[in-house]
């Protein structure tokens, strides 16, 4: 059993093995500490020249990464908590994401910025957020999210070695400790995987009737949605399919549209706060694409900061029950 954490660690290791242009950079990434969440553990021991610890300077280190990438290296920057991505927005939007286009396509910025998003660990308002919504849709910036349904390390490897553009790579704190799910272990489900470099997964309860509702979710929320899909089938006899993209931005939703064309009912699930979250764009595109007749709802965090106290945090963040409830309601809407 490989955890997402191990997979990511292995992914970075593979990158370092395969290319001497890779540099892993971030706060506290050196051994024996190996990073706040241990994703870089062991790497500085084996690749001492290629793993670089930095001062506490989120904007600065992303900017340094932009420079390295422009000059042909493959820097992988760790931002310790996704909450601090706020400090790098200028470097991401006005620098990393613009240089290629602004130079009339003369240069490339193969930068990866990795960061753990998400709550459910009681870290409170500045260490629990899913701030990716503020960066999705920034032209020139790719956003990719790891999932338990695939090899997170391989996904990261592609972002580092095969993508010539800047990638914000999202991890979820709760996913780290989860095992990667072999699809044949998902015995309840039939799984289809698209053959995009950053694939989209489509799950359906094995042998179930035609789905009547389509769920979509990414990252750790996909795990909650998967649980919801099961319980919807077994407890409510509501059959659904679940679309799990790993490539969030730029948005490319053809797999989702195929599914929704059948069901006409779309439920998006995400852990970020709802307003202008990922689901908003998904729904807007689905409606533009499919035209009238679509029903849709979103499940997301309440539009407020994330409280530290466990009960409060649970109330603010979306839970499996919330998904089920929304799905039941949506399946009845007309």
């Amino acid at each position, binding site marked *: 059993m490989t955890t997402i954490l191990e997979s990511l660690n292995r992914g970075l290791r593979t990158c370092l093995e395969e290319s001497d242009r890779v540099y892993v950079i971030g706060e*506290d990434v050196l051994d024996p500490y190996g990073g706040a969440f241990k994703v870089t553990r062991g790497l500085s021991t084996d690749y001492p020249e290629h793993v670089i*610890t930095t*001062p*506490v300077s989120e904007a600065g280190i992303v900017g340094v990464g932009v420079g390295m990438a422009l000059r042909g290296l493959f820097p992988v920057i760790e931002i310790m908590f996704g909450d601090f991505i706020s400090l790098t927005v200028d470097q991401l939007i006005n620098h990393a994401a613009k240089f290629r286009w602004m130079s009339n396509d003369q240069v490339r910025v193969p930068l990866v910025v990795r960061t753990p998003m998400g709550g459910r660990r009681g870290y409170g*308002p500045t260490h629990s957020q899913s701030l990716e919504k503020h960066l999705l849709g920034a032209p020139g910036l790719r956003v990719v999210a790891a999932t338990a349904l695939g090899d997170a390390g391989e996904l990261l490897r592609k972002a580092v070695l095969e993508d010539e553009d800047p990638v914000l790579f999202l991890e979820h704190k709760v996913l780290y400790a989860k095992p990667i799910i072999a699809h044949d272990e998902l015995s309840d489900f039939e799984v289809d995987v698209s053959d995009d470099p950053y694939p989209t997964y489509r799950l359906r309860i094995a042998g179930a009737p035609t789905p009547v509702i389509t769920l979509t979710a990414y990252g750790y929320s996909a795990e909650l949605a998967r649980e919801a899909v099961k319980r919807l089938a077994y407890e409510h006899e509501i059959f659904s399919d679940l679309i799990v993209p790993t490539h969030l931005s730029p948005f490319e939703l053809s797999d989702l549209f195929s599914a929704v064309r059948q069901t006409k009912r779309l439920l998006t699930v995400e852990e970020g706060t709802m307003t202008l979250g990922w689901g908003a764009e998904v729904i807007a595109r689905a409606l533009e694409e499919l035209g009238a007749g679509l029903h849709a709802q979103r499940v997301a965090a309440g539009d407020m*900061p994330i409280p530290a*106290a466990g*009960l409060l945090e649970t109330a603010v963040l979306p839970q499996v029950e919330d998904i089920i409830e929304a799905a039941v309601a949506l399946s009845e809407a007309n």
Partner: protein
Amino acid sequence: MSRPDNAAFYRRMLRIRRFEETVLDLFPRGLFYGTTHTYIGQEANAVGVLAWLREGDIVVSNHRCHGHFLAYGGSMRSLAAELMGRSTGVCGGRGGSQHIQWRDFYANGILGGTVPMAAGMASTEKLKEGDKMVFSFMGDGTLGEGVVYETLNIAALGAFPILFIVENNRYAQSTPTRLNLAGEIPDRFKAFGIPVESIDSTDVVEIHEAIEPMLKYVREKNGPAAFVVHTYRFAPHSKGDDSRDPEEIARYRTKDPLPIQAERLEEANQREIQESVEMEVADAFEQAESDPAAEPASLTSPLGKSQ
């Protein structure tokens, strides 16, 4: 302001120490949420510095805020309750360990982010033409954040009454200062024409005295100054994440601020203080534990109505 007596210094430090130790002890019981950054080893800083506090002065703290909060006069029980997510917590359980607001005390978990806020508060005091000032705490690692320098420039240009206190505990999380910090800390302030005093000490009395000139400067000249304390933390960065050399820790442990200060007291006096602090801590955690949990129903929208 009259200087606190040795007993008061000892008591204040011991309150912090025993509070923090209790937090670490109780953590495995699952009483608390998230994690915590304890102040064990650094008590002389908060106590020595904040003994100069006057009514209405402002304290701006950071992720390692328990010590500052207790030295400021914050209640142990409401801090314990905050860590436990009780409705009686300093911030009703919303903030948790790093996000504390009470009276003129403010903390936030974004390193460096509170420093311009502290300067803005100082500018407000200057505009009011009162004699209040701001104490703004930061760690050595926080000197990596650019907004700190934006603030030093702004505060110096505006001659804001603010004292920047750098607690150099020689590490940012796992990273020793040597890998984090080019040049010398005091020069970071001098670069903006801000006067700075440094001390390498864990003696609360020494620290208290050493800061006096900078404090006077801030109150009289109504301009920023800085104070750097070279210190050490004994406990892990948060909990369980300590990769420092145990020998190094042991070496610094010999400079524990508590025994240093205890020695200035009669044994009986020490014991009396210890017992009363013990009781206070026990009561605080007991009460906090029996306080009601913060209720989801209490959650409000983050914005008031636009009028």
